[in-house]
Each structure stands twice: as C-alpha cells, then as structure tokens.
C-alpha cells in the first residue's frame, strides 16, 4: 500500500525528544508528520531509562548536553503541569565512600551554584544524612544533596506530548521505518521511503535514537557515529514503608553517572543502569549485568530488599563519538537537522532541546505563524483514587467501567484501558505504558487475558491477532475449535 504524504516538516522518531519537538512545532502553522518505526511512541530509549530530571549541576559546561540540562529541569516542571505529567521533586544524593572525592563534590556544588541552583549542599554529618536516607550505607562518608532533582515517568511524558501534538494537528505514522532518503534539489524537499509508503517533507528532523547515524548517512552525512550502550535495570516491588527517599548516585565515574538506586514516581524502586557496549538491537538482560547492578546497588543500600524484584529490562543509550549531543544542521544538507546522541541527561533536556530545535528551524529561514487553534493543555487518563470514594463514584456514575478493576496489582479499571485504546493504543504494551496494567507484582499473570479481550473487543480484532508490541508478538497462536 503506497501512501503518499507531503508535509512541511518530518520528524523521524517518536521518542520523548521527537514528541517534544512535534509538540513545540504544533504551536505553529507548519504541517508536521512524525515517522516512527515501532507501533507506539517512546519504545526506544524513552521507555527504558532512569526517569530522572537532574538538578543541573553536572558536567563540563562547554558540552551541550550539560548546558541544556541546567534550564531543562525547571522547564520540564513548567510543561509537566499543563501536560499533566506527574513529577515528584525528591532530591538527589551523590554519595562518596572516600573523603578523597570531596573535591569532586565541591566542584559539582560550585557548578550547581553557577547554574542557579539554590538548594544544593554537601552533607558530611552522618546523622543528617541518615535523616534524609535512613537505609543508606554507613560507609557513605558524605553526599552532595541537590533538592531540585525530580523523578518522572519518561514514557508517560512521551505519551502526554504525543497526545497533545496530535490534538494540535501533528500526524503520527507508526510501523514505518525510513529505509532511504532522497533530496530533490529542484523541489527542495526530501523524499523518504518507508515500509508504509513514501513521505515527502521540506525539512527533516532526525531524532532516530540509536539509529540516528544510519538515518544521517541516508543523506550522505557521516559526521558522527552512534554507539549503542546498554544499561540493565532491575525493578523492585512497591515497599510500603518508604525504604528510600531520594535519587541515590554512586561517586561520579569517568564515563557514566554509574548505577543508581531511586524510587520511581509510581512507588517502586529501580536500580541500574550498568554500562556496556552493545549492538543496536540488543535489549537483553544478562546474568552478569544484573549481578553487577545488584552488587553496586547493595553498596549504597546494604539492606535493599532484592527478594522483591519483580522484573528486569534493558535500555540503550545513543552515545555519539563526539562525546556530546549532536544538534544542528547536517553538514550534508542544511534542511536536515540532526538531534542525535541524546544520552544522559537527555530526559532532563527534553524541553531545552525542543526549544533549541525550534530556534534552529527559525534560523534556517522557516517563517512560523502561530497556530491559532493550539491547545496547550492535555489531561491524563483519570484513575481511581482510593482515598476519595465520592470522587470515584462520580466517575462510576458517568462510566460504569470505572468500577470494573482489571489489573488487581495496580488497581487499573476497564474505563482507563478503554480510554487508552481511544487515545491510540493498539497493543498490550501500549495499554501497559498508558495505564500501568501489567506492571505490578504479578506482571500481568492475572490481567493479561482480560486486557487482550478488551483490545479485541474495542478494536474489533480477533484475540489471536492482539500483540504485545506490534507485528509478530502475538499471544495466542490460534483459537481452539
């Protein structure tokens, strides 16, 4: 089926950065299409990272990736409100086990002050540290405490940006991998061949994650290379009495912030990521990797309840050989903008990156007019609130399905699942990322068949055609006679 689409701007990649760029562009009058090879948004690096908004003290301010993070934190908080992205400000501790690292902490603290952080301090008083983090190892000598650090659901944020972009006129095409790009000089436009058909656009923004360098090469740009670097994670069950309060880092290393231990915004504890070169399609966890993560996490929290691990997964960092973000006009074509190598602190920079990209597009000569129909707010799917019966029963009165609990572990109702389908989810993982159904301690052991039945009913799709995450990932082989 050859579909022919022609737009002003094409964004390749619907991860959180791609969706943020799309949303920024949707404020204006140019037609935008986002081309995504997966079935849903955020299924690359976005769905498998630590979910941290760094306070903004780290790094070499000559690097773009650190420069953009300074304002990134504050900007994210601002947008999170209008997009109804849940955020929790819990602070972060960079822990050191050896006084010899004190100067490193001090440098970070000073950098933070220079960047405008107000609540950043070094804590050497053990009691004060225990007050903040009662279960932190006694071997921690001191820690840099940055109160402005936050946790967020990265895929939830991508979904919010996707929904708002769609609402404001952006087109999203899924299951479409770009296989070649041809620039036509006469029409000054790019013709992209995808698995779903041809797409034409005057400008292309390449936000293709670990594959960004391969996309660049399609226009003859080999100015950078992306090495995918895998990080494995373990997720622990929700612990009733708060075992951990803030984001906890190891002493700063050379390549990476190291394996961290942090609560998630949903109440779990996540540990990871380790750091290993991998191939771009390798998202496997390994015994060695998980062992490394466990060991490092125990160094910070010796009594970490590892027996409550409920799942393990891995994500890929897109690391550019330039050691920094690659954001700017491609040297091969000045209508092709690279937004590549978005490794840590990429999530924190989500909105500073999208701002920067917009500025770049303006500089290239695009005359943007305001989109008069732009709606800045988006509402997240209403969930039941166990502390407020009357609010819930109001929900149930309007929609009976709010009384029907499907996922027992996470208390997700049928109403939320149906709404998630209305908002574009066609797979079990899509439902999972929008509603949390299947993310609890039983990992979908009870609710999976229910979710499949609901998808089957709502999308008029046979049970055996419902997939976990797109083509080929069916659950049931066939219906029994």
């Amino acid at each position, binding site marked *: 089926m050859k579909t022919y689409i022609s737009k002003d701007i094409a964004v390749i990649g619907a991860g959180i950065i791609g969706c943020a760029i799309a949303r920024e562009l949707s404020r204006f009058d140019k037609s935008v299409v986002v081309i995504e090879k997966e079935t849903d948004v955020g299924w690359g690096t976005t769905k498998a990272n630590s979910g941290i908004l760094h306070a903004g003290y780290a790094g070499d301010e000559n690097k773009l990736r650190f420069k953009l993070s300074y304002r990134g934190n504050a900007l994210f908080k601002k947008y999170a409100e209008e997009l109804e992205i849940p955020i929790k400000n819990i602070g972060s501790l960079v822990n050191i086990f050896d006084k010899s690292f004190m100067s490193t902490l001090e440098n970070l603290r000073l950098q933070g002050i220079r960047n405008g952080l107000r609540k950043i301090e070094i804590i050497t008083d053990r009691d004060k540290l225990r007050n903040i983090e009662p279960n932190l190892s006694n071997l921690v000598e001191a820690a840099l405490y940055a109160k402005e650090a936050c946790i967020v659901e990265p895929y939830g944020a991508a979904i919010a940006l996707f929904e708002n972009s769609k609402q404001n006129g952006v087109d999203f095409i899924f299951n479409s991998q770009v296989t070649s790009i041809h620039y036509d000089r006469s029409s000054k436009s790019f013709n992209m061949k995808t698995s779903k058909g041809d797409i034409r656009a005057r400008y292309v923004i390449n936000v293709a994650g670990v594959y960004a360098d391969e996309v660049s090469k399609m226009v003859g740009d080999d100015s950078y290379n992306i090495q995918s670097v895998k990080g494995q994670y*373990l*997720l622990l069950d929700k612990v*009733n009495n708060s075992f951990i309060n803030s984001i906890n880092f190891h002493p700063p290393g050379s390549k990476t912030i190291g394996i961290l231990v942090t609560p998630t915004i949903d109440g779990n504890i996540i540990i990871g990521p380790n750091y290993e070169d991998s191939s771009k*399609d390798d*998202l*496997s*966890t*390994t*015994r060695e*990797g*998980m062992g490394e993560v466990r060991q490092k996490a125990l160094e910070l929290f010796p009594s970490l309840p590892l027996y409550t*691990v*409920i*799942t*393990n*997964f891995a994500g890929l960092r897109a690391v550019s050989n330039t050691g920094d973000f690659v954001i700017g006009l491609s040297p091969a074509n000045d209508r092709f903008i690279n937004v590549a190598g978005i490794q840590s602190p990429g999530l924190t920079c989500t909105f500073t990156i999208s701002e920067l990209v917009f500025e770049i597009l303006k500089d290239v000569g695009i005359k943007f007019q305001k989109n008069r129909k732009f709606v800045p707010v988006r509402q997240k799917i209403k969930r*039941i609130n*166990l502390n407020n*019966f009357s609010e*819930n*029963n109001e*929900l*149930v*009165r309007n929609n*009976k*399905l*709010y*009384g*029907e*609990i499907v996922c*027992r*572990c996470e*208390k997700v*109702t049928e109403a939320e699942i149906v709404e998630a389908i209305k908002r574009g989810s066609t797979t079990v993982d899509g439902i999972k990322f929008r509603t949390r159904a299947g993310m609890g*301690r*039983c*990992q*979908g*052991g*009870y609710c*999976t*068949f229910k979710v499949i*039945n609901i998808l089957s009913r709502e999308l008029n799709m046979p*049970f*055996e055609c419902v*997939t*976990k*995450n*797109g*083509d*080929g*990932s*069916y*659950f*049931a*082989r*066939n*219906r*029994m006679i």
Partner: protein
Amino acid sequence: MLKERNFDLVIVGGGPAGMASAIRAYELGVKNILLVDRNPFLGGILPQCIHSGFGLKIFKKDLTGPEYAQIFINKIKSTNVDVMLDTIVLNIDRRKNVTFSNKNDGIKSIKAKAIVLALGCRERTRGSINMPGDRPSGVFTAGLVQRMVNIEGYLPGEDVVVLGSGDIGLIMARRLKLEGCNVIGVYELMPFSSGLNRNIVQCLDDFNIPLMLSHTVTRIYGKRRLEAVEISKVDKDLNIVPASSFEVSCDTLLLSVGLIPENEVSKAAGVELDENSGGPIVDENLESSIEGIFVCGNSLFVNDLVDNVTDDGYIAVDSAVRFLNNKDDYRRNIDIIPGKNVAYIIPQKISGYSDVIFRIRAKFPAKNAYIEIPEIGFKRKEKFVLPGELIFIKVGKEKLEGFKLSNKKIITINIKESERYGCDC
C-alpha cells in the same frame, strides 16, 4: 447492587476455600453472609482445572476441578448467602471495614463482624526469578495459559517448553500436547520433581515428553515472539555448570516456578505474615493476628489437595462462629518453629489447650524418615517424604499438657532421615 452495609461474615474469595466457608457458615446459622469473588463465576481456580484427581479424599470420587466446584456452587444456591461476583476487594482494615469495587456499586465500604480470607494464590513470575534475556511475547506463567486454553479457548503457541515440574507444569504439558502442540520437554531446577508421581506418569511418560532434572532456563531469546531458550545444567548447589548450556528452539515458554499465597489485602489490614509459608500467621483456629479475621485455602499456604482446602474452610468458619458468639478461644502464645528439613508449618502459633492438626511442608524428599517433635516427645515414622505432599500430624491436647506445665513457649518440628533420596530412582 448491594443493599446491605453490615454483615456478620464476609468471605473474600469464592474458590473452594471461600465456598466451603460460606456453606459451613450457613449451616451453623450465621445470618448475614457475603461471599465475594472477582470472576464472573464461582469456583476460583477450579473451573480452569479441567483434569481429574479432585475429591478423592472427601467424596471418594475422582472428580474434575469444575465438577468439584459445581457441587459447592449447587449447595450455595440452596442457601441465602449473598454472592457478589465481578467484584474486587481493594482493602480491609483492622476494624473489619471491607472496601470493594464493581461496575454496579462503584467503590463501596461495608462492615463485617468477622472475615474469612480465601484469596487463593498467585504465580511466581519470570521477573521474580531474575531470568535474563529478551522480552518477547510467548513467555507465560502456566496458570495464565491454563486460563487461556480452558476458559478463553486459545492455544498459546506450537512448540512448547515447560520450566518447572510441579503439578501445574505437568498438567499443562499434557493439556497442550492433547491439543496438538509440540511439547518439547519439561525442565526442572531441582534434582527431584515436586509433582505427584501420578502426574509424571500420566502427563509426561504417557506422551514421551522428556523430563530433565537439575536443568533450568538461563536465557530467553526472541525479538517479538519467543524464538528459543537457553537451557543449562545446575549442580547440587543450584549453580550453573559451565559449558553445559544448549539452545532449544520454541515459541512458547510456560513457567511453573512456584505459587505465592495472595496477601495484599491481608497486609493492608495489618495481618502478620509468615515469610516461610508466604501466608498469614495463624493459630489452630486458623485465626490471624487480627481478632475476627480467619484465613484458609491457598491464601494461607499453598495446598496440594483441594479436599484439604475444603476442610480448612470448615475449620476457619467453625472458629469464626465461635468468635461471633463471643466464645472465648484461648490465646495462642506457643510458637511452632520449622526445624530440620521443614519449609513451613501451619499453624505457626498454638494455645496448647486444644487438639492441633499440624500441616507440615518438607523441603527435600527423604526416605525412611521420621517426624519428630522433641518438646512433646512425639515421633512418627514416615516411609516416604515428598515436598509435594503435605504431612498432617494430629496432636491431641493431652500431649500438650506436659509441655504447658514447662512454661516453655517454643515447639520445634523436625523431619529427620536415615537415607537421602536422590537421583537413584
């Protein structure tokens, strides 16, 4: 819609434990009884256990799971027990307020004078055993596949590997084979199977499905759908034997790696749990650490036979009725400690004033063993000890007289053996 707000007895869970409780409560004259279940039907796990082997003890018949359930469903129909289906209990507090949710009532709270927890159990997952690899579809817990096949009517795949030789894994290996799947093999981490011999023969041997002991799945391969698993041999300490790994192509992996008593609601209520059994700490009356809250069925510990679950349902309600009638049951302050080769014992506490039935779960198989309770001088020969077969020991209260006089508060139960059962079978 539920009209009542106050109940004498609320039973959470309408499986065999809950149904037995409801029927017993009615027979004993309890007035307002509410039985709640999350499914649109009663029976709990039984309707999907279509195989036979149920009721051999209680009914002296070889019944299928659905038949066993139907007998109790029919009995309940003849009572005035209020049955609320498609309803999930969200919370229970110490004062026995029960919060539930369903389409008709929304979220509601009711008050109970006494509660029986009969929530059954859930399955251990891939994540909880830290299995590495990719995350394709096609990896299921055995119970989920049992539901899919027997109730929803869908086959999961074609080429099946089963991890875990407990009964559910064996039963599902047979079920899938009978439905035309290629069941490649059953792999078991331990050097012994925890399933019944009958199931090894009738599920595996009958169909030439290989069973490999001391093997486990060490890696999952598959981009979208499962493509293969890596199997490795383990040594006696359950460490992977180097260079023993091999790959098996398959599209379906069934995990039968353990069951965990379901206790989220119990925890929320503040009921004390036993980390050995995974369920609440109870006394000989099956009463939990909270007065008026009783526990039975797989929610208390994972049972082998549904017949015992039914019996426990009766015991729990006998106690609940005594509680409702303000009959003073003695305080339980003697701790029962699992000793040698014992995984857990129910009850965990006793008063010493009544007869007790100890339900003992062994850790490892043993031949020519004996059960020993040194503090009361009890010893019983047990020719054959299997983890998959619960041991019942009835101790009359006379035997406990002497112990009570000693003022000691701890009783240990050991399984000692003269010979270790290994792979010489």
